[in-house]
């Protein structure tokens, strides 16, 4: 569990962080997104104990880690696994040797070290590359080794700064899978910095949007997508208005967001059936957030009870975002 309270940090007059507050629940993945220069890396580096904030607190499992020094600082660092931005492996060490580094720092004896390294190679699916040097690995393989190294000393928290920014889409998938396994199999709390909404889409439970050193949006991804005004929904959901439609052919036109198998599969046919209305999907589409199917549709409804149908959809858990054509037949 990570709690960040009112964190500020400036560099020679540049305010990189302007009072950042957020939290990551134990065993969940938070994506920190935002434009370049927003302060994402500074935030990650503060939590990684590479940078000392000017003020504010960072709690990992309840303990404030911002004021530590000496051996207490080193012990805290071992509790926080870090995948730094960019190439970070020792080029003169094998993959296995790189993963062993945190265990050496922690004074873990040789035999235990080797078996732990074996487990981690297995976790990231690179057992056959144990003896390979970083120069002999692909970018994606190197990042997976960096993740394995970050997890070696059994940290409760894993930080990754742009872990996929230099990778092609296919390799990105393999790195994200490894982060997801870390959470699922080791129960690690993950904070991942990215400018790629695809990362949020695939593995994040929560998202925090940073702009100019401030959190401008923070919450569960599945909650935020139902809010038409949120940046997250704009970035993650299918566009609805690609094809202009003839609104006059419908009594009502509305956008609706449906989250989950049940809602996506059954809500619309059921509404149509219950209220005896003709219900057409005229825009939008289906996507997937993690394992959850999510749809944003533009609906065209015909029938006397169209308003009741929309109301029922909303009560049944669908988010009716806007009626483009309201009760008076006027575009709202």
């Amino acid at each position, binding site marked *: 569990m990570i709690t960040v309270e009112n964190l500020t940090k400036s560099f020679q007059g540049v305010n990189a962080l302007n009072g950042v507050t957020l939290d990551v629940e134990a065993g969940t993945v938070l994506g920190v997104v935002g434009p370049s220069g927003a302060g994402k890396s500074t935030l990650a580096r503060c939590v*990684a*104990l*590479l940078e000392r904030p000017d003020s504010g607190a960072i709690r990992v499992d309840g303990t404030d880690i911002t004021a530590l020094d000496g051996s207490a600082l*080193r*012990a*805290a*660092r*071992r509790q*926080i*696994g*870090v995948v*730094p*931005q*960019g*190439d*970070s*492996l*020792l*080029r*003169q*060490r*094998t993959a296995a040797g790189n993963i062993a*580094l*945190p265990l*050496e*720092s*922690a004074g873990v004896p040789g035999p235990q070290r080797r078996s732990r390294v074996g487990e981690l190679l297995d976790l990231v699916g690179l057992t056959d590359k144990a*003896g*390979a*040097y970083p*120069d*002999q690995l692909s970018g994606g393989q190197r990042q997976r080794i*960096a993740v394995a*190294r*970050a997890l*070696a*000393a059994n940290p409760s928290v894993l930080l990754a700064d742009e872990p996929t920014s230099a990778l092609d889409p296919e390799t990105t998938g393999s790195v994200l899978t490894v982060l997801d396994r870390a959470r699922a199999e080791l129960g690690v709390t993950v904070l991942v910095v990215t400018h790629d909404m695809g990362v949020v889409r695939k593995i994040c439970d929560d998202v925090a949007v940073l702009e100019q050193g401030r959190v401008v949006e923070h919450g569960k991804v599945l909650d935020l997508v139902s809010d038409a005004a949120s940046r997250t929904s704009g970035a993650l959901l299918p566009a609805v208005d690609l094809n202009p439609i003839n609104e006059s052919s419908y009594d009502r036109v509305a956008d609706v967001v449906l989250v989950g198998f049940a809602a996506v599969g059954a809500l619309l046919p059921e509404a149509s059936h219950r209220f005896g209305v003709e219900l057409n999907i005229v825009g939008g589409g289906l996507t997937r957030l993690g394992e959850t199917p999510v749809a944003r549709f533009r609906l065209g409804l015909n029938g006397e009870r169209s308003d009741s149908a929309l109301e029922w959809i909303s009560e049944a858990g669908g988010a009716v975002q806007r009626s483009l054509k309201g009760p008076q037949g006027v575009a709202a």
Partner: protein
Amino acid sequence: MRSATPWSDVLSYLVEATGETLYMVGVSTVIATAFGVPLGVWLQLTAKGGLRPNPAVHRVLGFITDLGRSMPFIVLLVALTSVTRLIVGGSIGSTAVIVPLAVGAIPFVGRLVQNILSEVHVTVVEAAVTTGASTLRIVRSVLIRESLPALINAIGVTVIALIGYSAMAGVIGGGGLGDLAIREGYQRFNDRILWSTVAWLAVLTTLIQLGFTRAARASDRRRHASV
């Protein structure tokens, strides 16, 4: 006109002088490495962006280092006479030359080492910091190990430079190949000794250079790895 020195005599001159040179250069290299590497590490640790940035310490260390480097060797050789006497109990002979050679080479090695260590990418160092490693461990396992090939080459460069400086050892009776070429060869118009020594010096430095290049390559694990 006297007859040329017999080849067998030339050979024994060369053998003796080579021994003296290797002794002077070898011992002073060991000393220069023993002090120069820690100096370079210290310079790099205290540098801006280093692991223990400390501008005051860094500036003082840097000033002393560059002062030492700018001192002409021949000046060190005579200026350090009393220090040398204190350390080795005499101020002439091969052993006495080791003191100024080592003192002159320490700042040279220090700067070379600092430059090499500063090439280790900051992300790699920070990654090690986040593992909770102590500064000593990072110096050993990251800074030095990652730059070992370049460090070995730097020691090779130092050895070659010291062979050059040791030619001036004759001034305080240190002997060696340079002294042989100058005193027995040049000053006595003995071309056979002069040119034999020059040729042998060329071969010797080439061999030494080759040895260090090989060692550096052998230490570079990036090259011979099994995939």
